[in-house]
């Protein structure tokens, strides 16, 4: 008998965050469940991320207990949370894993973390010996698919957050971030987030300006940035290339006349201004000046929306890749099914030939006995080959093949 794939899990698609938190909090229960599955001789991989907790299993042998009930008992969850668990078998399980690893099932379609998370969950299970032939094949195929989807399609391209979009737009302006001077105005939540993005993208030590210098100094102790007083804004605008403004002000902080005055001193070097404040803190008419670009939160949202739409439009293409990989995996599973039957036939053939030789060739000498046994083996082998060809017929459906296989196995066992 071949193994049966099964996934049991809960995710942001079926449960709210409180339920997910409730389930993920009972770590020991989850591990107990995994050990129980492994104890029954099955294979199991536990994938636990902030948005999903899933058990991928390859079930061997007869008898299938109610895994959902067992899990709910072990992690001791409410009746409502119990309903949030989903369970998919066979092809549905494979399709589910493929969709998850391709990030089609993620909150943000195209995010790359899920691939790394599933890969590390699998490697951990592999190291601990929780997986065998079937789950190894399933997960190796899934990881390869995840990589392929991200290489062959543009699912992972384009920023999907405002700060990311700002950095992405900067890439369209500046050739090398290593030589680009940046300034962040505002040390609030959004300012710090922008600062993180800038540092992560390779901007060398951005300047941080805040109404109170003390706060800027506090932030600079945690992040690689240089605190500067807000009073020096005009002077700083002469040096910097990128300005990220995230403050709450009633009147614009950077106005057109200021930039008109600064530009000749900058020798008309490109100035990229990003304003994510509401109300706006950078005069939008600055965009009309040569070598100056102003983007506000609405413009960035437009970029984000376009990127999201572009990612969504890739879904059909990715599903086609998933289907083709799934087809290949199904063929492999069918071959496993056939190969097990073939192995049984081969074993049976050897024992039948030996038995018959002992029964009929009692009076023969050793040489004659060996020759006759060889002949019998050859005849049996030819019949075996016919059976194998029938089983391997690509025209047979999986169900028919399984039925024939079971029939042959039972016949062999009867004899």
């Amino acid at each position: 008998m071949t193994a049966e794939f099964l996934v049991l899990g809960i995710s942001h698609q079926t449960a709210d965050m409180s339920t997910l938190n409730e389930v993920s909090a009972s770590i020991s229960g989850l591990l107990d469940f995994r050990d129980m599955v492994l104890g029954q001789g099955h294979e199991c991989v536990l994938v636990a991320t902030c948005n999903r907790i899933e058990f991928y299993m390859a079930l061997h042998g007869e008898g299938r207990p109610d895994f959902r009930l067992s899990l709910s008992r072990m992690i001791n969850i409410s009746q409502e949370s119990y309903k949030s668990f989903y369970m998919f078998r066979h092809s549905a399980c494979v399709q589910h894993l493929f969709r998850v690893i391709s990030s089609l099932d993620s909150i943000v379609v195209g995010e790359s973390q899920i691939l790394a998370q599933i890969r590390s969950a699998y490697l951990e299970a592999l190291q601990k010996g929780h997986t065998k032939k079937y789950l190894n094949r399933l997960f190796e195929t899934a990881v390869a698919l995840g990589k392929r989807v991200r290489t062959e399609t543009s699912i992972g391209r384009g920023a999907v957050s405002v700060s990311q979009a700002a950095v992405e737009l900067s890439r369209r302006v500046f050739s090398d971030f290593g030589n680009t001077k940046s300034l962040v105005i505002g040390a609030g939540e959004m300012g710090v987030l922008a600062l993180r993005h800038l540092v992560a993208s390779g901007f060398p030590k951005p300047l941080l300006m805040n109404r109170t210098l003390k706060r800027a100094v506090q932030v600079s102790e945690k992040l690689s940035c240089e605190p500067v007083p807000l009073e020096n804004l005009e002077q700083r605008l002469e040096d910097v290339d990128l300005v990220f403004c995230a403050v709450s002000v009633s009147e614009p902080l950077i106005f057109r006349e200021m930039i008109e005055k600064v530009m000749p001193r900058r020798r008309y070097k490109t100035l990229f201004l990003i304003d994510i404040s509401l109300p706006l803190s950078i005069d939008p008419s600055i965009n009309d000046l040569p070598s100056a670009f102003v983007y506000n939160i609405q413009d960035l949202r437009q970029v984000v929306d376009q990127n999201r739409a572009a990612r969504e439009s890739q879904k059909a293409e990715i599903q086609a890749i998933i289907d083709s990989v799934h087809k290949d995996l199904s063929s492999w599973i069918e071959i496993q099914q056939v190969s097990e039957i073939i192995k049984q036939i081969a074993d049976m053939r050897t024992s039948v030939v030996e038995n018959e030789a002992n029964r009929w060739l009692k009076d023969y000498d050793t040489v004659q006995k060996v020759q006759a046994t060889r002949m019998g083996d050859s005849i049996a082998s030819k019949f075996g080959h016919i059976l194998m060809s029938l089983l391997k017929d690509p025209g047979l459906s999986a169900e028919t093949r399984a039925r024939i296989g079971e029939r042959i196995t039972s016949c062999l066992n009867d004899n």
Partner: protein
Amino acid sequence: MKFNLEMILYLISLILFAFAFFRMNHRAERLGFVFLILGLLVHFVVFLYNILENPTISLRLVMFSLVTLTGSGMYVMMNFRFRLSYSHVFFVAPTLILCLFYQPKAGGTVIPVAFSVHLIHFISSVLALSSLTISFIAAILYLIQHSQLKNKTFGFWTRRLPPLGTLDEVGFLATLFGFLSLTVAILTGGFRIHDGQLAFFAMGSREWIIFAAWMVYALYFRIRYSVGFLGSKLAWVAVWCYLVQIFALFIMIGLHRFS
């Protein structure tokens, strides 16, 4: 159209670059470079062989062949320094198409060129034409990207074209090299007229137009070093200067006085 091995290699590289541009495919881009470099190598060997085998080969054919070699060669070298995104098709296409479709009908031969001051004029003209072509393409792409970013239309072009900074650097370098080569070409051309018993500045309208373009380029560098970086305005200068030169060289009817 005459097809040979280098043309086929160039065509394959162009198709791959076009595919890389539309599908934003790195693999096609890399493969395109392999075919381009192969094409350049084959072209170089064939070019040398043709010159040695038949020194009376048409000068115009030699010129177009050299423009392709130097233009594409310069571009390949620039790629070691700059990341030009998926836009290779635009840079490589003009010189290759020039080579593919140009059918020489008449012209001088290589022999008299090889032993005179005209050789320097010839080589510097080829270098100027190649690098100013790259500068022209970079300026056009700069203007497209600039307008996309100014108008906040983030679509097909914005994602595929290189950053403004890169396009400016490429354009500036190519213009500088083209300008220096053009200076040498104009000076040596002048000497050639002088050798031919004519007044040093007895240039025709074609030569005067190119000289005017040279003066605008000089002004371009003057502005760049004194006022500063003026992005799109200087890109427009590069575009118009190049178009004027192409008009003077290939569209205007009349004899080239330097030849």
